[in-house]
């Protein structure tokens, strides 16, 4: 029997997200964004991180606002339903963070190259764009078969990928459902993987459906029980998106003072998911609960 990988969020972030690490997060784009893990990164005051992700939907803005970040490798950084994110804007405009500008496809291509263990992969995207100007990991190449001009995207291999999922066992085996985004690629390409999960379940639950496993458990470094760990983003099977929280964040992050106030309330004052759920309040958790269900038709893996 292998050893348990379950630990506290504090231990997982402390051990597997050193200062200066490249960290991939928010890989399924708008769902299952690992906010709880991101907030722990802020509480631990990490420095010099490179954040990797397609669209960050306020998580990156929050981490940038606390001064943890030196570089962003992403396609879109903002607040999906309101637009720009202020900490990010200011940090770039002040020259405090470096950018590696991707599109969603070039980022997916770079992570897929990392996952496949090859140093680059071509795409037909980005040609004619100025992404080449603000991203040295893109180069124009010629196809050896067709002569076509293509964009080569250098492999991206994060030091650590943080994924929030619905359920995991203590050995790192986990189920993910919903749109996957670039979750699979980022995990496969990554040196370490931290899983935060709505529920910790028995290994038999996970092994009942190996097709729903998104990355092999033997490569996972840490498993953390983090209910509501994706809030305010949605968690399929658990809770809906909290639109109001995204709207509120935009209002409460316009200035450094606003942000400090937001951080004090939603990050610094929180120690563990119990605190967080209490802070959310019953009305809010009730509003976000699923009201209409549809369960997957079972399949048989017998012999």
């Amino acid at each position: 029997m292998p050893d348990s990988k379950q630990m506290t969020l504090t231990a997982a972030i402390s051990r597997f997200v050193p200062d200066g690490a490249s960290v991939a997060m928010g890989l399924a784009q708008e769902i299952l964004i690992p906010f709880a893990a991101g907030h722990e990164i802020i509480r631990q005051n990490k420095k010099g991180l490179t954040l990797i992700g397609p669209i960050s939907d306020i998580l990156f803005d929050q981490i940038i606002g606390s001064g943890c970040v030196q570089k962003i490798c992403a396609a879109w950084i903002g607040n999906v339903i309101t637009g720009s994110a202020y900490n990010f804007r200011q940090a770039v405009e002040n020259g405090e963070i470096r950018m590696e500008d991707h599109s969603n496809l070039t980022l997916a291509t770079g992570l897929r190259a990392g996952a496949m263990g090859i140093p680059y992969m071509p795409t037909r995207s980005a040609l004619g764009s100025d992404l080449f100007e603000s991203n040295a990991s893109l180069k124009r190449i010629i196809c050896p078969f067709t002569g076509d001009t293509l964009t080569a995207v250098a492999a991206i291999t994060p030091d650590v990928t943080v994924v929030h999922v619905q359920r995991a066992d203590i050995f790192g085996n986990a189920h993910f459902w919903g749109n996957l985004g670039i979750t699979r690629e980022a995990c496969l390409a990554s040196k370490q993987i931290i899983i935060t999960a709505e529920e910790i379940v028995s290994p038999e639950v996970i092994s009942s459906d190996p097709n729903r496993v998104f990355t092999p458990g033997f490569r996972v470094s840490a498993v953390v029980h983090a209910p509501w760990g994706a809030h305010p983003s949605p968690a399929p099977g658990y809770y809906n998106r909290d639109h109001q929280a995204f709207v509120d964040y935009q209002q409460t992050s316009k200035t450094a003072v606003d942000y400090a106030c937001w951080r004090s309330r939603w990050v610094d004052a929180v120690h563990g998911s119990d605190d967080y759920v209490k802070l959310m309040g019953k009305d809010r958790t009730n509003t976000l609960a699923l009201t209409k269900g549809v369960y997957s038709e079972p399949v048989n893996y017998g012999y």
Partner: protein
Amino acid sequence: MGIEKTTPSGQVLYTPAELMVTAAAREIHDGDVIFVGMRLPLLGFQLAKSTHAPNAVGVYELGIVRDTAAPEPILTMGDLPNLYRSQWLADTADVMGLLQQGLVDMSFIGGAQVDRFGNLNTSYIGPSGRPSTRLPGSGGACDLACLAKRHIIIMTHEKRRFVPKVDYITSPGYGDGPNWRKRIGLPRGGPARVITTLGVLRFDSQSREMVLASTHPGVSIADVLDSTGWPLLVASDIQETPVPTADELSTLRQFDPDGFWTG
């Protein structure tokens, strides 16, 4: 200057955003495969599916394919009703593969700056090394502009946004004119329409330059020219943008009951 959206008695008939969404939805043909972007396009697809294009298929960059409208209003493409009974939940790279292969008939993208050849900027105002304003970036827009069979731009029409030359090309249009896309290696596509708060523009098939094709009700040609940062071409057969029908409006309002996007 403004879009006529009230009756003489002051009752709201439609909002500018509703007119834009409706114009966008009408660009979707039945059976089309549409790569659906953030914000207004979410509604445009829902509207088209529920009216004239019941067999359109929606592809979403986060790894969703849908052949039905979402059963409840959604504000983002990752809202759970948009996953419910979808046709396919998959990897971003999988759905981007459909796009890159040339299987996507049309896409919609927004922009902060556009130029006369339809090049879009959603990244930097000023030099990218030390910008005066940092915008959110490409998301999937660059990919859609490069790889869809055609794409439609949806924008607020202001002089500071309609500029002679964009500061940074996030999403390529026709570059510097004829043959540019082919020359730099893009396999297909290009912008087909620009739907703005003032009118609808298309691109000349020879010069690839933007041409004003229709103005919204209550908007004059002069209004549009004043809001454009270069001497804008005007189509000889310029028309008024058709307004939403009552049916379109009532359908649309089911998908955005609180007017979050269209209020």
